[in-house]
């Protein structure tokens, strides 16, 4: 036992002191925030303001109407063309337009479907949507005028719709939007950590094998101790990294609460966290996150350890053998996205109990509420299955590891590795 502790200590300390650990601990949350906010920002930036020429055959569009809608928003710019219409159709591009539309000769109560928007290159859907919206505003105004409605009546008709907000009576603070965000964050975080640290276990085992240190060490400890020590050591590194992030979050939250007023980036971040903290049961979330993080990590990393022990220094061998395992993790992420849409559905329930996918899928369901969305029996079944699952994979991996770590030469197949695992010793 004492020797496992020594191995854990070495694995943990050598990794935690590495510069890459410190850098990734600081940079990962920054990247994460950047990607979430940045992609939204970039999406809004990437919409082009299209200049569109409007040729009106219906006679319903007037210059003042077009001017009016242009003034309301600047996401695109319409120009009503009254003269030289034919030459415009040929030269719109040199005249500075991105494209043109020809409003057909229709009455105001007719529908215009699939009106061609002529361009000489394909613009994104979002940019075209802006033009469509703008034309619809103008079209709405034409219809309203023809119906004899004033501005007030129009706004009553357009703006006063019914919108729904779900209120969970058992849990007054529940907020489906925040739950969805948290579900994504948790699921993807577990996914990244399992893949990242799982492959670290695999590379660590490969390093020991190709450096030939393995034979020196296993003349002092059992092979299983060496494997388990490595897995636990690296698991603790992952846990440390997560706890540092949680601490950061708590500090931001508390600083934000203390300063009271929400100002600037820090304030809005703290404000966002405040919403999260009040709408979600944080202690439960963190507890289960740690459980599923470690459970999932042990489940998969022991498989990665077995693969690392079986191959030689060739990274491609390792990749081809680990492909099925990596696929299982990627598969979980696909199930997760549908589980977030319907967290109580059959697929979500079963995928969150089966240990192959439970770490990711269950963590995507828990933010929606325990025990309302995820009943206790499901949680218990899932946890028991995951514990059983990683005991099995660790045992299984230990058998393969014992043979593989001293085996040099040809890369084994999964079939051969199964033989190593299940033959009598």
């Amino acid at each position, binding site marked *: 036992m004492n*020797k496992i502790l*020594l*191995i854990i200590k*070495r694995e943990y300390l*050598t990794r935690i002191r590495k510069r890459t650990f410190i850098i990734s601990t600081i940079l990962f949350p920054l990247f994460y925030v950047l990607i979430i906010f940045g992609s939204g920002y970039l999406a809004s930036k990437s919409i082009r303001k299209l200049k569109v020429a409007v040729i009106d055959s219906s006679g319903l569009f007037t210059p003042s109407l077009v001017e009016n809608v242009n003034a309301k928003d600047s996401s695109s710019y319409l120009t009503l063309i009254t003269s030289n219409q034919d030459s415009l159709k040929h030269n719109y591009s040199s005249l500075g337009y991105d494209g043109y539309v020809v409003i057909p000769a229709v009455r105001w109560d007719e529908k215009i479907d699939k009106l061609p928007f002529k361009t000489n290159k394909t613009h994104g859907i979002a940019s075209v949507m802006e033009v469509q919206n703008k034309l619809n505003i103008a079209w709405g105004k034409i219809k309203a005028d023809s119906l004899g409605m004033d501005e007030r009546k129009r706004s009553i008709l357009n703006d006063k719709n019914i919108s729904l907000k779900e209120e969970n009576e058992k849990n007054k603070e529940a907020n489906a939007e925040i739950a969805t965000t948290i579900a994504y964050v948790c699921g993807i975080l577990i996914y990244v950590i399992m893949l990242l640290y799982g492959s670290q276990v695999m590379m660590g085992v490969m*390093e*020991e094998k190709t*450096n*030939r*240190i*393995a*034979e*020196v*060490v*296993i*003349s*002092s*400890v*059992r*092979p299983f101790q060496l494997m388990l020590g490595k897995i636990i050591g690296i698991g603790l590194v992952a846990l440390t990294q997560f706890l540092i992030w949680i601490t950061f979050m708590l500090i931001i939250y508390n600083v934000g609460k203390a300063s009271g007023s929400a100002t600037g980036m820090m304030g809005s971040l703290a404000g966002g966290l405040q919403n999260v903290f009040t709408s979600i049961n944080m202690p439960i979330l963190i507890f289960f996150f740690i459980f599923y993080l470690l459970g999932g990590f042990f489940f998969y990393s022991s498989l990665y350890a077995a693969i690392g022990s079986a191959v030689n220094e060739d990274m491609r061998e390792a990749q081809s053998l680990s492909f099925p395992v990596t696929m299982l993790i990627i598969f979980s992420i696909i199930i997760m996205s549908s589980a977030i849409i319907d967290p109580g559905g059959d697929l979500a329930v079963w995928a969150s109990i089966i240990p192959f996918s439970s770490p990711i899928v269950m963590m995507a369901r828990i933010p929606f509420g325990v025990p309302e969305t995820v009943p206790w029996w499901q949680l218990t079944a899932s946890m028991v299955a995951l514990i059983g699952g990683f005991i099995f994979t660790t045992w299984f991996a230990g058998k393969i590891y014992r043979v593989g770590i*001293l085996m040099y030469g040809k890369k084994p197949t999964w079939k051969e590795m199964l033989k190593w695992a299940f033959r009598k*010793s």
Partner: protein
Amino acid sequence: MLHTSKFAFQHNYMPILELHNLRKYFATQKAVDDISLSIEKGSIFGLLGPNGAGKTTLIRMITGIFYPDQGQIIFDGKKFDPLNDIENIGYMPEERGLYKKMKIGEQTLYLAQLKGLNATDATRKIKEWFIKFDMHTWWNKKVEDLSKGMSQKLQFVITVLHEPKLIILDEPFSGLDPVNTNLIKDEIYNLAQKGATIIFSTHRMEQVEEICDHIVLVNKGQKILDGTVQKVRQDFKENIFSVGVDQMPAILNGNTPFEVLSNKEHLFVVRIKDGSKPNDVLQYLLQQHANIHSFNEILPSLNDIFIRLVEGTPLSRQFQKIND
């Protein structure tokens, strides 16, 4: 050299390790097939054999890495218990291995602790060895900065640091220059004198003859030879002598008590025919008025015996080969 264990054999023989009918089969081959042997405490024991003979498998069973399929290992008088007894064994595999990126001092300390030493004792011992081997400036270096010979020395220190009762060295001199070879060799004698037993696995027969008290030769998973170096050489002698004469008398008929295998200048290698004795040779030569200035028996070297047993080539044929 100073080691006296060679002569302790007849007196109170105390084995450190006994193997009884050890077998280890892998899917396609019998790696170790019914090997029994006994190694005396404090001796330097040569484990010899060609590549793939089963030496490494045998060693891995002794170091607790493999479990035997059949048979029994007795270590220091008790049934071998891998979990505890491996702390009393030091093993230097043929393929050396260290963590390349780890600092040398830290790494040595870690491996010593895995052998059951506590941190204080281990640090003290490491410092002693590092001073002895002139390595004390290496503590904060990384293994990747060391030359092959330097890391070899480090590996030796790691193997013997915890003062094991049994030290297993697989090709300990490969890659070492003569100075460092002597350094390690002296240390091996030193350790044996202090009571450690050394199993020395190698293909280098001249080193075995020089260092080992007792040898075992394995081939194709089986033991084919077992004995002291002297006894083995005596057992395999083929009545071959070297004779120094000015001129070998003409051999008139087949009546000579010997046949000439080879000659080089005035030195003849002869094999005494069955039923004749060395004295018959001398007598014959004197009768022919040959001027004899030397007469020595040629005992086969371990290398000759090794080749003969593994390939089935007798010593006398080797001389003929040279002559042809």
